[in-house]
């Protein structure tokens, strides 16, 4: 599948990119393909505390609704208002303009513990 190598991934299909103290979080191309036809996005406001492994929002497609699970713990510093208003924009560029939230990471070790692209792809290729 070839997910980008510069990102880390959660088994629940979120990606994470560390930029100093901040982690940018989004969902993978694989998740976008699975969900298809994204119509609704619920993201936490800046200041919200999120915890690794816990739900921080939801994404809905015409067919189904899915929880968004935080890959890292911390405090939301920014959410992507452009995709919140038009979730279909995630599909065009899930690793770039389609990012979801930025988090000030409270435990940087969590980032290191996430899957790399190869491990994520291996896991995701087993799903349909």
């Amino acid at each position, binding site marked *: 599948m070839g997910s980008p190598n510069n990102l880390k991934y959660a088994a629940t299909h979120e990606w994470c990119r560390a930029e100093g103290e901040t982690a940018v979080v989004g969902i993978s191309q694989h998740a976008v393909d699975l969900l298809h036809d994204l*119509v609704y996005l*619920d993201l936490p406001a800046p200041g919200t505390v999120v915890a690794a492994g816990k739900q921080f929002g939801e994404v809905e497609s015409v067919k189904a609704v899915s929880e968004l699970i935080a890959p890292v713990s911390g405090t939301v510093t920014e959410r992507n208002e452009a995709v919140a208003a038009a979730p279909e924009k995630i599909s065009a560029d899930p690793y770039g303009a389609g990012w979801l939230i930025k988090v000030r990471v409270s435990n940087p070790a969590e980032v290191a513990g996430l899957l790399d692209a190869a491990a994520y792809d291996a896991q995701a290729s087993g799903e349909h």
Partner: protein
Amino acid sequence: MSELRRTVFAARHAALGAKLAEFGGWEMPMWYQGIVEEHLATRKGAGLFDVSHMGRLTVRGARALEFLQHVLTNNAAALEVGQAQYTIIANEQGGAVDDAYLYRFVEDEYLLVVNASNRAKDVAHLRGHLARFAGVEMTDRTEEVAMLSLQGPRSREMLAGLVEGQLPEPKKNALGAAKIKGKPVRLARTGYTGEPLGFELFLARADALEIFDLLVGLGARPVGLGARDTLRLEAGLPLYGHELGTDAQGQEIPIFAISLARFAVSFSALKGEFVGRAALEKQHEAAGRIMRGEFYSPALEALPRRVMAVAIAGKAIARAGARVIGADGKLVGYVTSGTVVPYWKIEAEGLACRIGEEKLMRSIGLMLADSALRTGDSLTVEIRDKKAAGRIVASHLQSKSPPYARPIVCEF
């Protein structure tokens, strides 16, 4: 588990990159490019649907009409050769075994098209009544006849360019026989999208692929079951298992709960006794009282809840089972079908009306709710842990003026 059935178009679906899934025992395309895109393509151009999974039963014999009058709710005697009608297979309680379309292409044979997921149940139910009508022959033709649906503003011009002979009369439910490249095709001005222009095609299996390819070549967009559902929902058309059959609590939904019952149930003297008649007469009487605003117990007993269209603020989807709360804070009903549909912004009005380029989205639903509620009433729809404002609307779509179906958008 038994092997999934595949329609004659299965190889085309795969070649077009369709996302396939099981539906009613068949492997069917859910979408090709995407539900949203296919929905929009149908509303602006023409959508091409493989509906060969639907059950096709032919009924013939001297007493065929008598049999159909007994097991179906509509007046089959009103059907001339060259006409079709929406009808319901009722049970004695006045609930639906299934909803169906009855076509009369030729003098001595009727074609009944039923839902794929109900086909076995319908056949068993109908066979149970067949014993009393000696000489009536009911044959399941599902596997030998292919069926396509071509829906949308460009459907007529596409077919007109292909067909040798006349298209059926330009009115809903008219039928005709024609040829495409020398191959016989039966055409019906019917459909399940709310499009003012639309056709269903009945084809011999051997000819089906060529005709599918011809239509795609003319620009018809293959559409999967995903958009078939969002299109019918926007048009306010019932789906068995949601607006007909049993409700979220397992209770039988009275047939008159759907507004289409007015056109699908006949108490004509020509029908005599038919399955469900007594219960349906009570529902009909209740529906009349409700329309007149007479809300006392006999009316509400036969028809406590009806199916209504609800517009929902925001972009979250109120899925089947979502609770609906009235202005007084009490539970008034449940969503039966909900989705977010895309629509083209309409530019100008009246005769100058045309479909624009801008794509918008809106959250809509159908619900089974207290019969005393009225169009315009404000509600709250519980979508998971959130509450969304809702309003009862007469319909989500204006389907009456060709060539375009137009969205009726509720502002919040």
